[in-house]
């Protein structure tokens, strides 16, 4: 039973770190390699909030807000110059990632920091003792994804987003302000990275170099899932998360990482459009 919970947790963790990247990539075709650094900023947001206020929970608001503010500036100064150049965005956002890391190092120092677990201990679920905080992460991640799905399917914002994914030019001629949509998308996707960072802060070491492994995994999940599909994203997270956690348990954590990478590469080699391909 514990294996099932662990596998589910691993899958949802991937989903949580990938969803912001997926939204930005799906809507704008921009690969944001600074996604891991946005996540790291969210974690520092949680660190500061917890230290100043003495309680962790407001971090789930302040973390994403901090990152949203940074993303707003980044979009204005940098991203809007690169919207038609997908391969260039990889480079530019990598530069941005370096900048954010170094600034954090200069301000906060390179050391590991801890955000204390706000709800320590474990609770009996399905016959096993499971850490309470992990259960909270699982619940919140599911809530975020379901919320986004409902938003996309039922709201006007979701309709606009789907229109822009399908055909940006056409959407533009219908009076949709593409630039505003892109701006909002970039801020929302980045804020989700901030939220992920804040939520995960009590479970990871917080330090300026923590971002790159996250972005590698998130990027793979997004590509394996297939662009522009929440169902694809969820299935990719499940597939990769389950393989990773199973291999980690029965072999070694390194085997888990290797399994995830190999599976992702093989999937993309034989299904270039990912697991779920949006209708052309």
């Amino acid at each position, binding site marked *: 039973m514990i294996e099932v919970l662990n596998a589910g947790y691993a899958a949802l963790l991937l989903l949580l770190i990938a969803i912001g990247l997926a939204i930005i990539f799906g809507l704008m075709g921009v*690969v944001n390699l600074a996604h891991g650094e946005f996540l790291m900023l969210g974690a520092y947001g949680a660190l500061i909030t917890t230290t100043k206020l003495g309680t962790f929970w407001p971090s789930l608001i302040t973390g994403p807000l901090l990152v949203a503010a940074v993303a707003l500036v980044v979009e204005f100064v*940098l991203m809007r*110059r*690169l919207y038609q150049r*997908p*391969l*260039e965005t*990889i*480079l*530019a956002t*990598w*530069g*941005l*990632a*370096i*900048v954010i*890391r*170094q*600034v954090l*190092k*200069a301000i906060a120092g390179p050391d590991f920091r801890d955000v204390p677990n706000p709800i320590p201990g474990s609770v009996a679920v399905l016959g096993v003792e499971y850490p309470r905080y992990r259960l909270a992460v699982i619940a919140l991640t599911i809530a975020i994804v379901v919320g986004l799905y409902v938003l996309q399917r039922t709201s006007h914002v979701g309709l606009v987003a789907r229109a822009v994914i399908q055909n940006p030019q056409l959407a533009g001629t219908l009076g949709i302000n593409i630039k505003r949509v892109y701006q909002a998308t970039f801020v929302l996707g980045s804020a989700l990275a901030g939220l992920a960072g804040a939520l995960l802060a009590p479970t990871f070491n917080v330090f300026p170099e923590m971002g*790159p492994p996250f972005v*590698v995994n998130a*990027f*793979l999940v997004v*590509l394996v899932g297939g662009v522009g599909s929440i169902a694809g994203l969820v299935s990719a997270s499940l597939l990769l998360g389950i393989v990773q956690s199973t291999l980690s348990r029965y072999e*070694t954590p*390194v085997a888990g*990482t*290797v399994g995830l*990478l*190999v599976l*992702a*590469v093989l999937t*993309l*080699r*034989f299904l*270039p*459009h990912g697991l779920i391909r949006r*209708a*052309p």
Partner: protein
Amino acid sequence: MTTNTALSRAPRLLLSSTPRNELMFIAILVALAMLVNDYYLDLVAGFLGLALLALSLDLIWGYAGILSFGQATFFGLGGYALGLTEIHWDSSLAPVGGALLGVVAPAAMAFVLGLFVFFSRVGLFFAAVITLALSVLAEQMVNEFSGLTGGFNGIILPTALPFSVREYYLLSVAIFGVTLFLCVTLVSSDFGRVLMAIRENEERTRFLGYTSPWMKTLAFVVSGAIAGVGGILYAMQTGLVSPSYIGLTLSTQTVVWVAVGGRGTLVGPALGALLTNLFQHILSASLLIYWQLALGIALILVVVFAPDGLYALFLGATGRFAPASLGHIRVRHARRPSTTRHGAALETRGVSKWFGSYRALSDVSIRLAPAELLCLVGPNGAGKSTLVDVISARTRRTAGEVVLDGWHANTGRPERVARQGVARKFQAAAVFDRLTIFDNLALARGGGRIKFLQLIRRGTTVDLPAHVVALLKLGGLLQQLGEPASELAHGARQVLELGMVLAQEPHTVLLDEPTAGLAEDERRQIGEVLRRLTRDQGTSIVLIEHDIDFVRRVADRIIVLDHGRVVAEGSVEEVTNSELVREIYLGTVV
């Protein structure tokens, strides 16, 4: 028989025939040996290994357009091959054997990877993703199998070098210099021109007959070998191999050196690697953060404002940017007649193409007689372009047969169709923007083949049949052979691409709206060119066209497509007078 005619003010020699900047670079490195103390010589010797790593990335990224986030893997593999051989092979030859293995192993890995990556229809990011994964994997593996690799601490090389620091430095400069000139030779060769064409527009390159996956794999193998040499040099200088030599961090740093230094300039990336590492070494730890910060900012600024990098800016400022390559155009008689032996130039039998449930083509059978000019007409979405895509193997058909001059085309590879003598022009003129007009023509004339000598040599003469030269003259292209194609106006681009199609001397050409966006006068001239082509050269033509007046002037026969079916077929009069065709175009006639 060849008629030599001087058609252009052609300089006799082409670019970098004397690579002055490269020579000066090497000269400065040699001079350093006299000017600088041993401490710095030792450092720079190691950094030359990193400069080779940058060269290896520039070769595939700057020239062939393949972004690799895994260059350090080849580099580290070179280093580890050397280290492990020295440890496990108790022989005085171990360093030599290890160095050999350190070149061969990365090259072999690049070969396997190339086969895996380049031969599938993968997405835009696949090469970047797989090399990224490779970097992470390699680092994990090295740490995991610590019994073999020494894990986190790495391997200390047991063999001390039998050289003084200065000798070792000069040896490094020699190796670097030789590799640099090898790269310069390679990228200025016919092969290098094909690589750049792939970078500019891979699909167009394939439709000229080049098997781009093999070309990319070859470039990747050379790049892997060079990175391996870099790893060997670096390991020798540091006396050590560790996981940091093989992982993602070094791989991404290499990307930064190359991007900031200047993609596609060779010297730029090498300088980027040398100077970046030198600064990093000189600056104290507290300043290092700000140096890294500056590097990140530099990367962003370069991407946004100077995509060609700092070295290209410098070359532009000093007016030394290598002049675009040039050469002669010579007129020769066409291979007459370039036409068919099997009765029909082209035949489709019951061809269907479905996109999911959408039927773009249903049971289309057409036949093109030798030297016939067949016009495909029909409203938007009728399936005209899809039919041409299917014939030219751009799209896989769902059912049916395509026979090209007796050859049963059953391939998903456009280059095979091109080499069978069926050439294609795209609707939006597809030319190689950053290559010169001469280069564009040379590529077309190259026929999709690269012989061994063309890896190191560049053709300076292109022989073109008289009718192609006449066409180029019509577009005013002969006066601007040295201009990049991006400078051309819309009409001239169309003419250039048509010229490239005809330069292949195909027996059949597929033209997708070749006169789109041209002025009436130009359209008339193109029409005459096409008529002459069928009459004088015996070329068969399939022409997609909307302008019915144009069709009337040139067509031998018309086929009307609607909703993916052939609905009418016949002479110009028959079809234009048909009720059915009017209905399709105008709706039901009341």
